[in-house]
């Protein structure tokens, strides 16, 4: 589930959230909105939990680094990195989300954050100004905002723009939906098309299918591991290191690189204890691990990539 869709589903008014945050504190605002959403625990955790930024332990980040957080949602990632880095630029297209992040940072007494309202393809920062760039919400959030430009073109533009802003030797952390996710393999509807199995098809056939059913092109927003690596290489990134957030990047319990079968087995044995991981998912995970294809079918993919 993507964050934009998440907030739409629960009809969250971000402008009222900012007002409440200013008057009663950002945590109270988050609690009120979470209560309204009907998914109190899930939404509250989504807005407040800094656990979403636990991937930072895999990054070579230091106290001297400047970080760019692109489309960072409600500010969890921004605040986490503001605590451990010299400066954080928080970039978003939504003024309300930026305002919420601003209130949150002020109340947490984090004064090393600059808010930037801009599209990720047009970052108003000079080249080579950041050591770390984070794209924790997937690349596909933004195409709806940019009109007729193709999704792939847009994604390439964004990656090029992120590459420019990175300092030599800097690193990018990126999350993306997996087009071959086991959920899609098991017949879940593929957002935003609401069609089953469409992400598994080659793009040309998926376009025909989408045209026939919906009358519009298929926005090929999700990628395979190979697909996202190809896009990153095309943008100039090197040393690509895929990491797999389990069960998904929005709320992960484990981060693994699937390099060892023993680690995979251990992780699956621990997933039994995770209430969000049901019996059928576990059986699928066991079979996929035995066949050696588990990493190809996780719902989300994260990649750590470097600039030469």
């Amino acid at each position, binding site marked *: 589930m993507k964050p934009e869709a998440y907030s739409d589903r629960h009809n969250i008014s971000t402008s009222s959230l900012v007002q409440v945050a200013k008057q009663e504190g950002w945590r109270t605002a988050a609690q009120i909105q979470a209560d309204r959403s009907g998914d*109190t*625990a899930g939404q509250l955790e989504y807005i407040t939990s800094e656990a979403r930024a636990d991937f930072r*332990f895999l990054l070579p*980040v230091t*106290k001297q680094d400047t970080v760019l957080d692109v489309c960072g949602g409600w500010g969890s990632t921004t605040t986490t990195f503001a*605590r451990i880095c010299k400066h954080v630029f928080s970039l978003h297209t939504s003024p309300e989300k930026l305002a919420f992040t601003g209130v949150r940072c002020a109340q947490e007494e984090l004064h090393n954050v600059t808010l930037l309202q801009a599209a990720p393809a047009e970052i108003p920062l000079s080249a080579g100004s950041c050591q770390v760039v984070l794209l924790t919400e997937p690349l596909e959030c933004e195409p709806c905002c940019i009109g007729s430009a193709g999704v792939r073109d847009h994604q390439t533009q964004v990656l090029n723009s992120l590459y420019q802003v990175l300092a030599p030797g800097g690193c990018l952390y990126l999350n993306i939906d997996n087009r071959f996710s086991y959920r899609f393999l098991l017949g879940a509807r593929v957002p935003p098309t609401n069609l089953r199995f469409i992400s598994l098809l080659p793009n040309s056939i998926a376009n025909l299918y989408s045209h026939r059913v919906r009358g519009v092109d298929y926005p090929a927003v999700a990628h395979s591991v190979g697909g996202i690596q190809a896009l990153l290489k095309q943008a100039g990134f090197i040393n690509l290191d895929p990491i797999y957030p389990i069960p998904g990047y929005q709320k992960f319990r*484990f981060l693994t690189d699937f390099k060892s079968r*023993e*680690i995979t087995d*251990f992780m699956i044995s621990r997933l039994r204890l995770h209430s969000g991981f049901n019996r059928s998912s576990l059986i699928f995970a066991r079979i996929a691990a035995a066949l050696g294809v588990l990493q190809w079918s996780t719902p989300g993919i994260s990649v750590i990539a470097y600039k030469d």
Partner: protein
Amino acid sequence: MIEQLRAQALNVWGDIHPTKIKPSTLDYLVQSRDHIVIFWFAKGNGSRHPVLISKIPRRKLFNYYLDRSIELVDQLKAGLRSPVIETIPFRVHAGQVNQLSHMVMGLMPGEPLEIPGNGFWGRRSAERQISAFLYWLVNFQSQALVSQQNLDWESYLAEHHSQATFAFLEGAQFQPVNGAICKRLSPCTIPITWGYGDAHHSNILMRGDRISGVIDWIGVEDQQWFHIDWYYFLFSYAIQFFKKNSHHDPSHHIKLAVSTTMGRSDHWLSDLFRAKTRQFLERNTIRPELSPELFLTFLHHLHWPEDKAQLLRDAYSIYSQSPSR
């Protein structure tokens, strides 16, 4: 950061495994829980078990709790003997990374308790797990007893109630109930023991019919009411049980867990909890009929990340509706 953590973990290898050969490098699996947990695996040794486990807090602010727990557990272990001492992991402070404390420990034997299903085998499994934890806790508390104290509930509430419970207690509806609880508990002398602090089923490791390891001692306390760990275990077990086996919404899981732990539900888990709680209280020479009141004192004491006043309201409602009141 992962490279620094790996190097620090390898540095303390000799402290954790004095007789084992140090591996040249370690593969990792990151787990996101209350803290960051990193399971380290010796490269190419073919074992599906980690050789070291790192724990790091998310924020500098929480270094204190991690460091304090290492000190307290060392103190606690000095007073423990077999078979309890073997169930508590040996932990080492490995240094700091980005100003965050880094603690390393070895793997404890056994598998974490898995919440069972609702059927016949689930029932058998729950009975085995809860009996094993009861046996461990009674043994642990007998070795970790600090003193006996009068449970002066009225004074406790006056001194310790938080903002959330304050609003709740001011409500006229539950004041008489609270008065009745104070009255029933007033002549009660209870043991004060060392407290484990996080008796969540996933922290309890079992091998055969015995508890083989108890991990995550961040919440350790050198003085705690004896019943806190017991009710924490039952209450969190019940929440997870209903999460797994019931299709109701999450708020209903909490209500079910409250009535089950209080022994006021028709579910078989409630019967099991009631029987085991009776054993637990009798071992501590406490009258078993005080269980619902003791459970309510636990709920007041509990750190609850969601709406605490709502939790208490539900619990007091269930308590008030009881036929035995």
